[in-house]
C-alpha cells in the first residue's frame, strides 16, 4: 500500500493547479459548484484541449496522451477543486470517448476521438426517457433499419450538455421482439440532424443543464452504431461504471466546502462547538469519500472495471454532498436562503444553489437505491429478487 504519488504525478498536479489559478487570476471564470455539468465555457475547453488534457488516457494515435487513469484522477480532481467550467468536454472525455474506444470501429475512433481531444466535439448523453429512468432497459425510442441507415423515433429526457452539444450519444431499441435488455443499441447522432429538436429543461437550481430531445424520423448511418447491435445494454453497464468512477461527487461542491469553512472562520462561527463539530465531521466524511474515489482509480489502474467500487463511491459521495449543502445552510441560517445575485447573499449564493441541486445528486447517473442494489447483488453476491 502506498498513498503517495510519484514525482512526475505531483509535477503534473502542480501544473494543472498553476494553469487553473492563472485562469482565475485573469478573471476568465469564477469557481462554481457542479462545474462539470453546469459550467459551459467553449473558450476554457479549447484552452484545456491545447494543453492536451482532453482524452488524457486515450492512445496517442487517437489524439490522447496515453496516460494512466491516475493522471486523469489528478487532472479531474484539480478541475473540480477549482470549480472549473469543463462541462463542454466532460461527458465526451469521461465516458463517450471511452465507450467508442472500447466498442467502436476503427473508423468511429478515428472520426471522433481526435476531434474530442481537440475540444471540437461536445457530446451530450441521451439515455433516459419519460418512462425509462432507473429502468433504462424499458426505453421506447426506436431505431429501425432502412438500407444503410437507422431511422430513429422517440423522446429522450434529461439529456446532458444538450444546448451546446455537437453530437449526442444515445440509446434506442433495435429489436422490439427480444427481451428488453437484449434489444438495445448505442448510437452517435449529429445534433444538427434533420428531425432532431430540443426543448430545454430548467432544473430546480434554475439552470439549463439538460434538455428533452425529440427524434422525428432522424436518419443515422449504420456506421454510427457503437459496438454490437442489440448489445447496447451490456455496453452501457460498462460505460456507467466509468460515469460513476470519478471524483465529481466528492469534489463537485468543493467550492462550497472551502467557502463555508472560510466563512465560518472569518465570522467566528467556528468557535461555536456545534458548528465546529459539524465542520470537523464534514472534513472526516470528505476524506472517506476522497479515499473511496481514489480506490476506484486504483482499481482502474490495475486494468479492472470498477463496478462495485464506482457504485459505492458515487452512492457515498452524493450523500456527502447533500449533507454538505445541508450543513452550509444550517450554518448560514436565514442568509442561506438568499440566491446568487441577491443583496446580502453570503458566499456568492453557493449554499442555496447547492442546497437545491443536491436534491438531484443522488438521482442522476444512477440513483442511490439502484447503486445499492448493484453493490449488494453484483458486488456482494446477494440473490436478486
Amino acid at each position, binding site marked *: 500500500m502506498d*498513498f503517495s504519488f510519484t514525482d512526475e504525478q505531483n509535477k503534473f498536479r502542480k501544473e494543472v493547479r498553476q494553469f487553473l489559478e492563472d485562469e482565475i487570476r485573469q478573471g476568465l471564470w469564477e469557481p462554481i459548484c457542479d462545474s462539470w455539468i453546469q459550467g459551459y465555457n467553449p473558450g476554457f475547453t479549447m484552452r484545456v484541449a491545447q494543453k492536451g488534457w482532453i482524452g488524457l488516457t486515450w492512445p496517442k494515435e487517437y489524439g490522447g496522451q496515453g496516460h494512466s487513469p491516475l493522471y486523469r484522477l489528478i487532472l479531474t480532481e484539480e478541475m473540480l477543486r477549482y470549480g472549473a467550467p469543463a462541462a463542454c468536454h466532460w461527458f465526451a472525455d469521461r465516458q463517450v470517448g471511452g465507450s467508442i474506444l472500447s466498442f467502436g470501429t476503427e473508423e468511429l475512433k478515428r472520426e471522433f476521438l481526435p476531434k474530442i481531444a481537440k475540444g471540437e466535439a461536445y457530446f451530450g448523453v441521451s439515455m433516459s426517457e419519460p418512462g425509462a429512468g432507473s429502468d433504462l432497459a424499458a426505453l421506447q425510442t426506436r431505431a429501425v433499419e432502412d438500407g444503410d441507415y437507422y431511422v430513429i423515433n422517440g423522446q429522450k429526457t434529461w439529456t446532458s450538455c444538450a444546448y451546446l452539444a455537437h453530437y449526442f450519444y444515445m440509446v434506442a431499441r433495435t429489436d422490439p421482439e427480444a427481451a428488453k435488455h437484449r434489444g438495445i443499441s448505442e448510437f452517435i447522432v449529429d445534433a444538427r440532424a434533420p428531425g432532431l429538436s430540443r426543448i430545454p429543461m430548467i432544473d430546480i437550481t434554475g439552470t439549463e443543464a439538460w434538455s428533452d430531445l425529440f427524434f422525428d424520423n432522424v436518419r443515422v448511418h449504420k456506421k454510427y452504431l457503437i459496438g454490437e447491435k442489440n448489445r447496447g445494454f451490456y455496453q452501457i453497464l460498462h460505460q456507467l461504471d466509468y460515469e460513476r468512477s470519478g471524483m465529481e461527487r466528492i469534489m463537485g461542491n468543493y467550492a462550497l466546502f472551502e467557502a463555508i469553512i472560510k466563512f465560518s472562520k472569518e465570522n467566528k462561527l467556528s468557535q461555536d462547538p456545534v458548528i465546529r463539530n459539524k*465542520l470537523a465531521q464534514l472534513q*472526516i466524511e470528505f476524506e*472517506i469519500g476522497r*479515499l473511496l474515489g481514489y480506490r476506484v482509480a486504483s482499481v482502474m489502474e490495475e486494468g479492472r472495471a470498477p463496478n462495485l467500487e464506482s457504485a459505492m463511491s458515487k452512492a457515498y459521495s452524493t450523500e456527502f454532498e447533500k449533507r454538505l449543502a445541508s450543513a452550509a445552510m444550517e450554518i448560514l441560517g436565514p442568509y442561506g436562503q438568499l440566491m446568487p445575485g441577491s443583496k446580502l447573499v453570503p458566499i456568492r449564493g453557493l449554499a442555496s444553489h447547492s442546497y437545491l441541486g443536491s436534491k438531484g445528486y443522488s438521482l442522476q447517473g444512477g440513483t442511490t*437505491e439502484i447503486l*445499492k*442494489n448493484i453493490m*449488494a447483488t453484483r458486488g456482494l453476491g*446477494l440473490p436478486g429478487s
Partner: protein
Amino acid sequence: MKLTLTEEQEMLKKTARDFLADKCTKKFVKQMEESETGYSTELWQEMAELGWMGLVFPEKYGGGDMSFLDMAVLLEEMGRACLPGPFFSTVVLGGLPILDIGSEEQKQEYLPRLIRGEKIFTLALNEPGYQNYDASSVMVDATPYNGNHIIKGTKLFVPDAHIADYLLFVARTKSEKGVTIFLADAKSPKIKCTTLKTLAGDKLCEVLFNQIPVPKANILGQPGQADSAVQKIIERAAVGKCCEMVGNIQRVLEMTTDYAKERKQFDRPIGSFQVIQHYCADMATDVDGVRFSTYQAAWMLSEGLPCSKEVAIAKAWAGEASQRVLSLAHQIHGAIGVTMEHDLHFYTRRAKAGELAFGDANFYREVVAREMGL
C-alpha cells in the same frame, strides 16, 4: 499510489489468518475471557516463534525489521480472529514506545526479551474522570526523592496490567511543565491491580500506585518533556486499534452476507429483500471507509510523515462506522445474533471496546477541528 497489499503482506496475512483460524477458535476466545489471565502461554510462545512480537523491531534486538504497515496487516487478522491476550499491549503500548524514546541501554534491556515472548508489557495512560484521552489530563504524581521518583495515583482501563511484567506509565512531576514516561516492575507490591469486568471481556485494569519509587534509570526519554512522545504513542495505538477494527468489521460483513444468503423467510433468502440488500451495501461502504482511512494513517506512520489529522480521521470514523456495521449486522441476523451461542457478540463487544480505546469520535473531531484551523 497503490491501494493493494504487497506480495509479502499478502503472505503474512494468509499465514496469520490460517494460524489464527486454527489456534484461536471462538471456543478459545470464550475460555480466555473467562480465565483470570486472559491469554494462553502456549499460544503466546507460538506467536513469538512466528516472529510476531518482533515483527517491527530492528534485527539487532531479534526483530523482523518490518514496517508498521506490515504490522497493520497482522493486527487486522488479529481483530478478525478476536485474538485475546497481551500482544497489543506488549508490542504497541510497550515495545514501540521503548523503541521510540528509550536509551540504547533500555532497548537492549527490554526489547530482546519482549521479542522472544519472555516478558509482557503494557502502558498505563488513562485516569479516573471523563473526556480525558491525552497527556494533558494526566494527574498521577511523580515526586522526586533521593534520586528516585515516588509515584502516587490511579490509572484506569490499563490493558493486561494484571499479567504484565513491566508497566510503562505516564505521570506528572509538579515542578515540570510536561509529563514523564516511566517504566516500572509491574509485580511490585506497591502496585495494586484490579481486573475490571468489561463488556468485551478484555482484561482492563485499575492500577493503584502506592508510593512506589522508580529510579531515574527507568525514565523513558526526557523527564518533564514527554508530551509529544505520549501523543505519538496514542496516535499509533489509535491506528493499531483501527487495524483490529478493520478485521473485525470485515469479518462481520462476511458473516452477515453469508447469513443473508442462507436464511430463508417467506420462501426466499432474506438477502433477496431490498432493505437487507441496502443494509449490506451500507455495511460494505463503512468497512471500506474504515479500511482505507486506517491504512492511510498506518502508511503515514510507517513513512514517518506527520499525520495527526489522518489518525484523527481514521479513529473517529472507525469508531462510529463500526457501530453502524454491528447494528446492521444484528438487525440482519435477527434473533440468533443476540445469543451467546452465535459468534456475533464477540465482534460487537470488541468493536465497542475498540471505539472507546485511545480516543473516541468526539475527541478526534476536536483534533480534526484544530487541524483545520477552525
